[in-house]
């Protein structure tokens, strides 16, 4: 069955988003909107020093301040080591965080917390806590931190977060010796922040029966529950995590922060609900960033343009704690072996502690950095060989039958398809005809980037999602899904999938999500998994419900269930005029349901891959160095778009972030004091509505995801994985000099031009 030809009633349409009406009318409840009687406000005191031992903390004045109800420090919180990062536990997790420790390791590290009757009083109380620090020397650079004599931030020599990752394939030395051309360079990426619009928030209440109830903005309700259970020593069934709506995450809300623990402990201590809301500045300081990465990359290529050897050393700057350092470094390294075929490879990966704010999970998870380096060097090679950049990529990208990182063989040459389609759309082969002569102060350039990404975290994480669907007596259903919707539209897609599978209307599916007491387990929203894995579970649960429904219908109608068809809310008997609505089948006498009809599924798939190619056209003002992105063509092959508006929205949003990361976004840490200098929205510069280019999106549905609902694959991270190099390559094309570091600021442009002339 050709996926393209299949027509669906609900899948592939653009209904109003689940929860959309609530969001536009202001009635959608986010965690910060929870107001409870007697609620206190919690705040965290943060270290002004990048590296110090805490000699003493005096909380007496704070405790005596009117309106203060509790103060926590290292002396009165549980001392349990944790990683703050997701369950299920994977090997690469490094446990190096305590709720509060006797050391601080970056400017912003939390040292104490208070609960008070108002935010103003909590703030005043923070100033009354007296902390005596013994300053320790600090390091911010990877190279400095790796030296054997560098100050140890945790307990490892050279500040290694985990043992280095080493990957070898084939014979790299031999292959380099045979290469016609060898290119080597170092690339680096900056320190962008997530800047989700909803600041980190947590509300904790020990309520009925002494159970802990937590409202929090998280991508991972079950992870929060599991880690709170472990660290606070509370059984899982006594903790309830609720996340109705959240204002964005992008990976930044994939870990626990100090404040979930602290909030729960303050609620316990005071016997009152406690709300802890980060200020925007705290989101920068106490939140997470992307890992800045330095990549040494060397390729050997044959005269005909085939890659034969690759050497890469990937070193990520983890900041003060491990968080996702091991994970992103592994992904960066393994994804670095893929995308462009190469039989002989030697890859090394390291993650290094420094006294910077903590780097964590961020959309693109280590592959953003790896692909930037790879795809920039691909451009450099194409220039050196005199080959067209798109043709050179087509020649070397993975194609049908090639092995992906997961060990699966690709079913189509989706990468080539995306490249060809995008090149046609933007007029790639005719681009230089549009270029006025390279004089004048404004130069125009074009660039391409390509990417692939798995729909899920397999094989690093054992994939699992679960769904339960309950049939109601009027033919509508409740869908209980573990899938988290950070704003991505995941719940809408789940509803569409369920409706399609059950042959009922989209409006007849009521999604229940975000409450760990009610919904079945899911490992969280990350790794572009919600449509493929979450949706797969929903489809299977719906299929299960459908089969039970048809069995009941067969009984009631006196026929065999295999001649029954279900569509449009009606059950048809094939080859007969006999039919009945779902309601007529499930409802018994007196309007009660005939029996309990529930479908459920546990889905543990492997993985599928989505592909994409981005083409960027830019203008560079060679007097000011300012870069203007004129247009972007984004081609994505995703198997099946469950909701095209949702897919487009993910791509458009990912492009905004990618443009920001490549041109204007960088958290600047002062190398003397360790202070973050631009922890606000004016000096940390995200693209605004005025800064966005013209965007053309092409969605291809050519390679159904095997095991994906209706062939759908993921899209969440794909949009940010090719745009950086597309823009970087376009800027390089415009000015004639290569840029290997992002963000490409106007100052770097002018410096490069000056150096080159």
């Amino acid at each position, binding site marked *: 069955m050709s996926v393209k030809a299949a027509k669906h009633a609900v899948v592939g349409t653009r209904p109003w988003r689940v929860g959309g009406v609530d969001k536009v009318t202001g009635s959608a409840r986010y965690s910060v909107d929870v107001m409870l009687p007697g609620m206190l406000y919690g705040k965290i005191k943060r270290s002004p020093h990048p590296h110090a031992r805490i000699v003493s903390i005096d909380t007496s004045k704070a405790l005596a301040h009117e309106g203060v109800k509790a103060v926590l420090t290292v002396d009165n919180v549980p001392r349990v080591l944790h990683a703050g990062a997701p369950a299920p536990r994977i090997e690469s997790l490094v446990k190096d965080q305590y709720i509060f420790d006797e050391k601080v390791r970056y400017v912003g590290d939390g040292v104490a917390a208070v609960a008070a009757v108002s935010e*103003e009083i909590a*703030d005043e109380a923070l100033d009354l806590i007296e902390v005596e620090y013994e300053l320790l020397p600090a390091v911010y650079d990877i190279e400095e931190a790796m030296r054997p004599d560098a100050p140890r931030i945790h307990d490892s020599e050279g500040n290694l977060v985990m043992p280095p990752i080493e990957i070898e394939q084939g014979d790299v030395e031999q292959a380099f010796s045979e290469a016609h051309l060898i290119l080597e360079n170092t690339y680096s990426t900056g320190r962008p922040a997530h800047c989700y619009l909803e600041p980190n928030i947590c509300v904790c209440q020990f309520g009925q029966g002494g159970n802990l109830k937590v409202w929090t903005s998280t991508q991972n309700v079950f992870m929060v529950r599991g880690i709170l259970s472990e660290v606070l020593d509370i059984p899982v069934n006594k903790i309830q995590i609720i996340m109705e709506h959240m204002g964005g995450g992008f990976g930044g809300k994939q870990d626990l922060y100090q404040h979930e623990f602290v909030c729960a402990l303050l609620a316990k201590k005071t016997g009152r609900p406690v709300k802890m809301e980060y200020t925007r500045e705290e989101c920068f300081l106490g939140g997470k960033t992307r890992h800045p990465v330095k990549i040494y990359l060397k390729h050997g290529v044959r005269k005909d343009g085939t890659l034969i050897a690759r050497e890469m050393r990937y070193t990520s700057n983890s900041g003060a704690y491990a968080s996702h350092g091991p994970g992103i470094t592994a992904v960066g390294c393994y994804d670095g072996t893929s995308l462009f075929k190469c039989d002989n490879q030697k890859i090394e990966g390291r993650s290094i502690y420094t006294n910077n704010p903590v780097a964590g999970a961020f959309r693109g998870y280590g592959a953003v950095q790896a692909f930037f380096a790879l795809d920039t060097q691909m451009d450099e090679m194409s220039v050196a060989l005199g080959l067209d950049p798109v043709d050179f990529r087509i020649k070397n990208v993975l194609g049908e039958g090639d092995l992906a990182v997961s060990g699966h063989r690709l079913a189509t040459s989706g990468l080539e398809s995306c490249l060809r389609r995008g090149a046609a759309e933007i007029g790639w082969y005719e681009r230089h005809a549009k270029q006025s002569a390279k004089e004048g102060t404004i130069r125009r350039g074009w660039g391409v980037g390509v990417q692939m990404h798995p729909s899920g975290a397999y094989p690093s994480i054992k994939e699992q999602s679960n769904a339960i669907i309950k049939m109601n007596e009027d033919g509508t259903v409740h869908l209980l899904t573990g899938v988290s919707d950070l704003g991505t539209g995941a719940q809408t897609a789940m509803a569409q999938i369920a409706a399609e599978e059950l042959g009922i209307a989209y409006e007849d599916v009521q999604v229940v999500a975000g409450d760990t007491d009610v919904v079945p387990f899911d490992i969280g929203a990350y790794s572009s998994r919600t449509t493929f894995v979450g949706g797969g579970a929903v489809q299977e649960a719906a299929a299960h419900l459908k089969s039970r429904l048809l069995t009941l219908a067969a009984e009631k109608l006196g026929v065999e269930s295999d001649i029954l068809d279900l569509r449009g809310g009606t059950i048809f008997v094939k080859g007969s005029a006999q039919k009945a609505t779902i309601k007529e089948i499930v409802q018994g006498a007196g309007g009660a349901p005939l029996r309990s009809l529930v479908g459920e599924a546990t889905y543990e798939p492997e993985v599928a891959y989505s592909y994409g190619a981005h083409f960027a056209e830019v203008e560079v003002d060679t*007097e*000011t*160095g*300012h870069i203007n992105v004129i247009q972007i063509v984004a081609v994505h092959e995703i198997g099946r778009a469950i909701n095209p508006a949702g897919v487009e929205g993910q791509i458009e949003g990912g492009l905004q972030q990618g443009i920001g990361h490549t041109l*204007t976004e960088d958290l*600047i840490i002062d190398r003397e004091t360790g202070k973050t*200098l*631009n922890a606000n*929205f*004016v*000096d940390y*510069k995200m*693209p*605004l509505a*005025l*800064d966005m280019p013209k965007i053309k999106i092409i969605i291809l549905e050519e390679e159904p995801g095997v095991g994906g609902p209706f062939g759908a694959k993921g899209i969440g991270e794909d949009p940010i994985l090719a745009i950086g190099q597309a823009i970087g390559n376009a800027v390089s094309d415009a000015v004639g000099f290569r840029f290997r570091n992002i963000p490409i*600021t*106007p*100052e770097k442009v*002018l410096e490069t031009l000056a150096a080159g002339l």
Partner: protein
Amino acid sequence: MRRIEYFAPETVDEAVALLGRYGESVSILAGGTDLLVEIKHKVRTPDQLVNIKKIAGLVGLTYKQSAGLRIGALTTVRAVETSQVIQEKYAGLAQAAQALGSVQIRNRATVAGNICRASPSADIPPPLMADDATVRIYGPDGERVIALENFFTGPGQTVLNTDEILIEIIVPNPLPGTGKVYLKHGRRKAMELATVGAAVSLTLEEDICIRARVVLGAVAPTPIRVHEVEDVLQGIFIDEKVIGDAARIAMKVARPISDVRSSAEYRLQITEIITKRAITQALALAKTA
């Protein structure tokens, strides 16, 4: 936000008396778009706020050819941005107003507030200085009038005493044949603090420049009138070479700092470019004025 005592006087004298009583611990609240941010960031820690928005007679934009433009202290930046007469006759000021913050900010921020805050990178002062604006100041001893270019004494510092209020800005009627421009350089197209700002006003009489004003923002502790550049432009026919020379002089005169937004070196390079572009645009406007 920190707890404060709040006053909302209805006359200027009441306001001035409050300022006198509380001295260093009181701040004037007009638009609040800068003050309240500073209080929240604990950069400023007043114990009292005097809201001057209830004082009658401080709002208002009037223009008369004979008297020029009079801007009441409480006039919002948005009112200045959208004023037809300002767009026509004081285009640099209109551009500066439009470049400030966002619509939401401009609906509250006052022109006087932007001046009194005296940030080195403020947008409103340069075009006003290029237009030879003066400001009326009211205090316990009555009024005084000061040329805006003499108003600033350092970053965040002005000639205002703690018990004085700026109540009006007066801008002379432009001469015929005048072209005015304010260019703001920043990394984004809005919500920016200028890395460099340049206001230029040129008056042509039969192709000769009879009056030139060039004011730079964000490249010195205060906005600066660059007399050295004005001297090069005045009394001659301005061509591309003159503009180039003028721009290079501007770069030599500027003394920017490095900060999180930009390095000093980059600001100097931009000073030259922005000055060149501002003069070029003002010249074109003057030719058609």
